[in-house]
């Protein structure tokens, strides 16, 4: 192996088939206590509705289940193994105490329909989290119900829609910068709006003059990510808010990048009317291979009557309750009370930092700027404004040797890192979007920098080595075209 690769070494990993391939009749991995009531024959009880066993369902022992999934787990990269610099994803450390408290008896065991007098603990957790998130965002009211960022976006746009409708008309258009995450336009359509994409200016910022020219009575809102997906703070954000408000339009902020701002500045103070937070990003709840998340939506006072039901309320005697009787509400966006277990973890995170949360934002911004400084001589920086929690390079220099951002990303795997985000945002051709988060030590950042510099050198001297990477993984590059052309989406006997 290349002597430049310091972080990672070769390691034997176990081979493992599908669980279905290990199955044999008569094996089992779980036993129930004996049934203490008279047995019932399912066929007799359910008649034609009865089922006799599930064809192909696995039959394996407990140790086989443990080994199967442990082996699979070793084929994954994870934050626990090292830096995971996926831009826009905020892959920070997921504190283990959060997992512990979410599993406590009296927390994990609670039923959403149990009497409110037996749910005060759950409701107090929700209440305190609401208070913390409002303080951090500078907003007035909040719902914790949405299951993830995209559902938060939808909730936010439905709130805007309901508000505008109450003022005379829902309007037709949502403006979205070309740098936005793909969920923004997809969400606007689900909320019943047409999307108008707006171009970023030469610096990658919202083009204020263009925005002004787009102000018509049709514009319901602008959805803006701040800091933008370039990792740059929208310096004219307050002016943008003024332009929108003068037109009777609202400012929606996608809070995906809140990790740069917590404790530093508050969206509520710079004119944002409604925003969502991704608790699985800024608030450290684990990504778990793609969820669960939580996407609370915080709003200004005038939007409060429209929040989804149920709304957490405090009675005169100080006890908490859930109020579902809200005539102006947009309705319910999800059954029950949101992803409660995720909300518990987010509160545990907020309590660990308390007023010191600013330090996390500072370290996140420090890491991104450090990496930027140390790599800007070898990778092209298409937008030069100061960055915050993430930095976006382009592959234009490496492209001259036929090496793309995806190739560099795959080669980074050989160096022991998870790739950064590739090919996003769309306004950067061949983007390398790097978000280290505050969880990386100087040592880990230095190793990443050394690796990226070594790969830049390889791209110049031995481009084939980079273009055929990764060379150290269990499987090589996978045939995605074949997978999509003739999809095999399940095992069959």
């Amino acid at each position, binding site marked *: 192996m290349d002597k430049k690769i310091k972080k990672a070494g070769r390691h034997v990993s176990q081979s493992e088939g599908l*669980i279905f391939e290990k199955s044999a009749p008569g*094996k089992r*991995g*779980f036993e*129930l206590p004996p*049934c203490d*009531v008279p047995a019932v024959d*399912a066929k007799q009880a359910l008649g034609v509705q*009865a*089922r006799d066993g599930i064809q192909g369902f696995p039959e394996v022992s407990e140790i086989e289940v443990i080994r199967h*999934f442990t082996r699979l*787990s*070793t084929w*994954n*990269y*994870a934050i*626990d193994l090292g830096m995971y610099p996926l831009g826009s994803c905020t892959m920070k450390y997921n504190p283990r*105490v959060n997992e512990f408290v979410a599993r406590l008896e*009296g927390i994990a*065991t609670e*039923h959403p329909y149990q009497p409110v007098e037996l*749910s005060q603990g759950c409701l107090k957790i929700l209440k*305190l989290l609401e208070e913390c998130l409002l303080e951090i965002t500078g907003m007035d009211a909040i719902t914790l119900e949405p*299951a*993830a*960022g995209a559902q938060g976006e939808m909730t936010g746009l439905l709130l805007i829609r309901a508000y505008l409708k109450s003022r005379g008309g829902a309007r037709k258009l949502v403006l979205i910068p070309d740098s936005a995450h793909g*969920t923004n336009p*997809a969400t606007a*359509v*689900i909320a019943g709006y047409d*999307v108008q994409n707006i171009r970023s200016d030469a610096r990658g910022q919202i083009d204020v003059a263009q925005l002004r020219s787009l102000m018509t009575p049709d514009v319901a809102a602008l959805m803006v990510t701040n800091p933008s997906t370039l990792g740059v703070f929208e310096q004219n954000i*307050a002016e943008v808010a003024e332009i929108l408000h003068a037109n009777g339009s609202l400012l929606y902020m996608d809070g995906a990048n809140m990790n740069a701002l*917590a*404790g530093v*500045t508050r969206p509520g103070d710079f004119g944002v009317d409604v925003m969502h937070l991704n608790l699985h990003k800024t608030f450290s709840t684990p990504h778990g291979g793609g*969820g*669960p998340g939580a996407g609370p939506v915080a709003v200004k006072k005038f939007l409060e009557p429209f929040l989804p*039901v149920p709304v957490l309320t405090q009675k005169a005697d100080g006890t908490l309750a859930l109020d579902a009787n809200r005539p102006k509400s*947009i*309705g*319910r966006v999800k*059954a029950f*009370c949101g*992803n*409660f277990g*995720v909300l518990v973890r987010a509160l*545990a995170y907020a*309590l*660990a*930092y308390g007023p*010191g949360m600013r330090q996390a934002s500072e*370290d996140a911004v420090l890491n991104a700027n450090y990496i930027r400084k*140390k790599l800007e001589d070898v990778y092209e920086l298409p937008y030069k404004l100061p960055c915050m929690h993430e930095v976006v390079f382009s592959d234009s220099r490496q492209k001259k040797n036929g090496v793309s951002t995806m190739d560099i990303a795959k080669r980074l795997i050989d160096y022991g890192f998870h790739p950064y985000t590739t090919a996003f945002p769309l306004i950067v051709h061949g983007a390398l979007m790097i978000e280290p988060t505050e969880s*990386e030590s*100087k040592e880990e950042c230095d190793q990443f920098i050394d690796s990226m510099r070594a790969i830049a050198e390889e791209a110049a001297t031995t481009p084939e080595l980079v273009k055929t990477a990764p060379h150290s993984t269990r499987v090589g590059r996978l*045939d995605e075209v074949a*997978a*999509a052309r003739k999809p095999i*989406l399940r*095992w069959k006997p």
Partner: protein
Amino acid sequence: MRYLPKSPSERQQMLAAIGAKSIEELFASIPPAYRLKQPLKLPGPYSEAEIIEYFRARAAENSVGYTSFLGAGVYNHLRSVVTDAIIQRGEFLTSYTPYQAEISQGTLQAIFEFQTLMCQLTGQEVANASMYDGSTAMTEAVLMAERLTGRHRVVVARSVHPEYRQVLETYARNSGMEVVETGFAPSGQVDVETLRAAVNAETAAVVVQSPNFFGVLEQAPQLAEIAHGKEALLIVTITEAVSLGAARPPAEADIVAMEGQSLGLPPSYGGPFVGVMATQEKFVRQMPGRLAGQTTDTAGRRGFVLTLATREQHIRREKATSNICTNQALCALAATVHMCLLGKEGLKEMAQQNLAKARFAAAELAKIPGVKPVFSGATFNEFAVELPRSVRMVNQELLKEKIIGPLPLGTFYPELTKCGLVCVTETTTRAEIERLAGAMKKVLEKPL
């Protein structure tokens, strides 16, 4: 701060390397007027011990020590400690959506296995990597049916979970979708004749739940015939997945939208759970959400990737089938591990115990003077009972015996004010059932 791996001197070294005099300089792009001048007013900072103490104190204010007979979309089932041990492995817990397939094969293969298990359970041909929960899976299934049929009218049984119907209503309100609700027969099943009359040539889908909100199993073949007769799709939603260990799956449905909480996830005050969406192969390109597919690598070895991404928001943006991005991957993994542990025999036995215990409970309660079953249709582990008094009042008395009684159906159905929904699973002991029956008898014998 214990989560931050930098010494003060390292921070200074890094600032110096950047060429900044202070950390403030790095925030210079934020207009000064909007920079916070003082620390956030938050409780903390708390040590690990204080965090645990805080949540233990909150847990003690909840229902610990009570015996519950609540179900209604959230069920108590046995879970092996193995499930949590597996899903807390950092390689699963702290990884992202498996976009980089070469270093995500663990997650990808687990999703592929989840998709397979969900197909086997539901009797469908393909299943996706997960949706948020049952309520949003059902709503997305309706949106999918709209795309497939080009129609915008949906007929929903009133015996579908009331909160699921509320979620559908929220999504429908702004999309020009017309939602028509249809009632239930004395059996507790969908009233077939009313349904037949409600389905017409503009109907995109018929939505039913089985077992339905009253615990009664629906007859999918007959309902499919009615829907298909007008070229509408049949969507079957399932909130109690364990029922599929004893009851035949709705193979005639075009889309199954299921809540997978019963498959190894704790009630957790309503989430996070795992939405399941399964359908037929011919519909897969209109299916929302992520899909893992099998393929080969450059050396011909089997591997897995996320596939058919051209349906999704990160590629298609405003033309995507759905805006879903983050789903419930770790919950889907928990369900996968749990299903593998239970296996063919374990799931069957668990389902049969639910059936047996619910029958026993229904018989015990029916012995109480004035307590009657509400519906005649076959049930799984939930059933509705009519009480001679207000369910709420009875429940207040039961709480004194540390029993959380039946869910008052009047909350959602004005015509069922005297009815309650009782749920009994394999976790409920015979002694607990007898205690409920005894306490309820005592309460109802007391003069008003």
